[in-house]
């Protein structure tokens, strides 16, 4: 079943007085199946973040459309967007985006509290997730008291506690050391095995090599796709690296 359809998506930023038009994204199309784990790769400025912002409806496209389970994001009313985002999407950010003034437990509860869930239900949901993320011991601590890897696992817990249709991750390993990165990627993989659809934006080859599919973006255009097939993580890593070299040296599109 197709969970996400991106059709001819374009985004042009216009400077003041109509001058300096910048094409951040042009005519990007792809689909994501239920249970898929995809990575979007590209260098800084390639349009990755723009794409993610459009998928999360933080921003409006200038052309094309995004359908989540067949529902056009543009048709969601402005005042329903927040609730829609809360119920359908989970976010993991590079800089964690945890709130300093909440302890770990409350940070994870945040989207549920915003959705108006009662305390007992929330606690019920938290317990298995906390265990899976290995953060049961630190629930009463504050973000400044725990390590970066732990913070990111908390952010993942916050993202999945609403059982979102799609988990969006923006450079989730960007601020982590290699050991924490590995642990987080392993966590993503295991979430994916349990059926969680994941779309991750990254420019880390290592991170992308865990995905089932890798999409490459260059200068706002979809440039290439790689499918894992039967490849191991290592083989995938090599393929991605080759593609990136090709991209950097200005090879032609394979499409």
């Amino acid at each position, binding site marked *: 079943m197709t969970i996400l359809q991106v059709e001819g998506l374009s985004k042009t930023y216009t400077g003041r007085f109509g001058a300096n038009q910048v094409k951040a994204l042009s005519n990007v199309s792809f689909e994501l199946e239920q249970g898929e784990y995809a990575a979007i790769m590209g260098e800084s400025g390639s349009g990755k973040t723009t794409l993610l912002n459009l998928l999360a409806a933080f921003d409006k496209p200038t052309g094309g459309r995004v359908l989540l389970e067949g529902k056009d994001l543009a048709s969601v009313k402005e005042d329903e967007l*927040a609730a829609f985002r809360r119920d359908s999407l989970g976010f993991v950010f590079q800089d964690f985006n945890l709130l300093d003034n909440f302890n770990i437990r*409350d940070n994870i*509860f945040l989207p549920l509290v*915003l959705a*108006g869930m009662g305390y007992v239900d929330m606690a019920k949901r938290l317990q298995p997730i906390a265990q899976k993320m290995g953060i049961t011991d630190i629930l009463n601590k504050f973000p400044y008291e725990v390590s970066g890897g732990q913070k990111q696992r908390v952010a993942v817990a916050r993202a999945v506690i609403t059982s979102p249709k799609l988990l969006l991750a923006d450079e989730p390993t960007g601020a982590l050391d290699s050991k924490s990165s590995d642990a987080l990627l392993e966590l993503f993989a295991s979430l994916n095995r349990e059926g969680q659809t994941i779309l991750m934006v990254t420019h880390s080859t290592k991170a992308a090599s865990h995905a089932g599919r890798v999409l490459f973006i260059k200068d706002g255009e979809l440039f290439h796709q790689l499918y894992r097939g039967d490849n191991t993580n290592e083989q995938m890593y090599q393929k991605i690296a080759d593609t990136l070299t090709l991209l950097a040296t200005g090879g032609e599109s394979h499409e």
Partner: protein
Amino acid sequence: MNKGLYSRLALQNLRKNGRSYGPFLLAAVLTVAMFYIILALAVDPNMESMTGATTIQVVLRYGVVVVGLFAVIFLFYTNSFLLKRRQREFGLFNVLGMEKRHLVKIIGLETLYVFLLSLILGLIAGMALNKALFLVVAKILGVAAPLGFLLSPRLLVWVLAVTVGLFAAIFLLIFLYGIRRVYVARPVELLQAEHAGEREPKAKWLMAVLGLICVGAGYYISVTTTNVLQAMLLFFVAVVLVIIGTYLLFTAGSIALLKLLKKNKRYYYKTRHFTAVSGMMYRMKQNAVGLANICILSTMVLVMISGTSCLMLGMEQSLSERYPCDVNIPMANADTVAMVKRAVAGAGIVPEDEVWYEYASLAAHRMEKGLDPTRDYSFDTSDQDLLADVMVVDLADYNRVTGQDYTLAPDEILLRVDRAEYTADTLTLCGKTYTVKAQVDEMMKNGDATANLTSTWYIVVADREELVRVIAAEWESAGMSRLEASGAQPMQYYGFEVPGHDEDTALAARKAIRAAWNKAAEDDSVDLAGTYEIRAWERQDFVSIYGSLFFLGMFLGLLFTMAAILIIYYKQMSEGRDDRERFQIMQKVGMSRLEVKRAIQSQVLIVFFLPLVVAGVHTGFAFPIINRVLAIFSLVGTDFYIWCVLGTFGVFAAAYAVVYALTARTYYRLVSM
């Protein structure tokens, strides 16, 4: 070239930080101007030449001290606030290779520019407003301001020198503080300073409870102190207690309360409470002292302005209580009254509505069922409730003066008690027990009796014989022989209005009476007794005291209001910056813009109006004690003071709301940027 670089950098910094330095500059300008004005008024010889204005200058000199102290604390405090916010900028300069001595140079130049600018603008504003405020003072005093007023060159130089000296010292202090900040911190710390201290505050229960006790004790003193003479002293104790308590409650109490709310899971995990409780905890940790400052400043403004305006606006009423007629001759005898009448007639003035009666006035101890005259004046303030001031008149005079038609048996009396309660049916006075036939409202006016702090007992006895007997008995109890006491005579009160209550006529009457009085005292031609009190003359004294207090109250009120507003503005700005990040995150995890806006609104509202509400409560609880302190100066009733307090609070709250609306806009801009 280097030199040019530093001054350019300093100027650029000031411009770049315009949103925070602008209000500071404005506050500095106003503080300079207000200090200059009050100093100039306090030493202006023209003030002295205005009638009765010596009092106002004494009051104004206290004002100079208060404004000076205030300027030091206020400017230093707001500046430290600004510096803290600029730590990051300094850190960046430091990292970019600027040495600390260069930073010091830049801070020095910045401080110098702000100092010069605020001094020059402040002095210009001060000089311009000085004349205007002089006219205001003249208006309050009800006299014509002398024309062509200007400080003499020598005085002007002196006032300027003092003002410049004071503010140079303040800015030097500010500069030294800046140096300290730069030298104490390491570059990395400078860069991260803004993110330090994000730890969740701990609840300090002991402090919170102590705060409650302090405020409670202050309130208790205010509510329970009935003794007016103790009230003055206890008032200051209560003020200190409430100030300490306010700081404790804002800092420790607020956090403790929020912790309690957080513990209640059912309450805490609600969409609206969730962000508010934790957000407030965070805010209170950083801003509790600032909010307590605002609260105390607001309370001071409210108390000062309501109190002084009550005195000022109630002055006419006080005057007419204390001096019931235009011309009053209390405690007189027949010869003196006759002399006064001759003098007034001699001046061509026709007395109207003449009042004349005989009375006895005695001090007594209040007993369970009566009054015991005493000559023991060893005055202990704690005995004040037992002291009674007694005025006795006879029925004939009473009926004549008040237009009543009572009859009394020889052992019956009419009674009126002010500032005390008496419910028994009988009353023993000087060894004789009377039956209280009625408690009456109507009573002849007597300024001496109403001016008392102790309870006043008006007793109407059946006839003049009875009146004389009371006086004789009192004289005897004071140790006189029966023979001496047998010559006892009541005192006389004589008062009248001048035609049309004309002030000049009243003053002319005073002149005539004074001349006759002095002459009689010199040649012993009249057996003088009592004194003469002319309301128009006394009014000048009242105006001088109340007017200067009123002026100072308004002046300081304005200054404190300005301070409160500035602190509020800075709070809003720094909080807006802190909150931006937090609300952005919340939006990312699924809070709608509307919810964000609502959450911001409720937090800002609470933070903003908490000090005002607490100030209101403080003022409310200060009411009883201030009401009693005011009773010493003024004879106006509680009702009047209530209106003064409500009026002041209303105006202040309105001004506060306007400031809120203005700063809230800045805040939303910062948060939603």
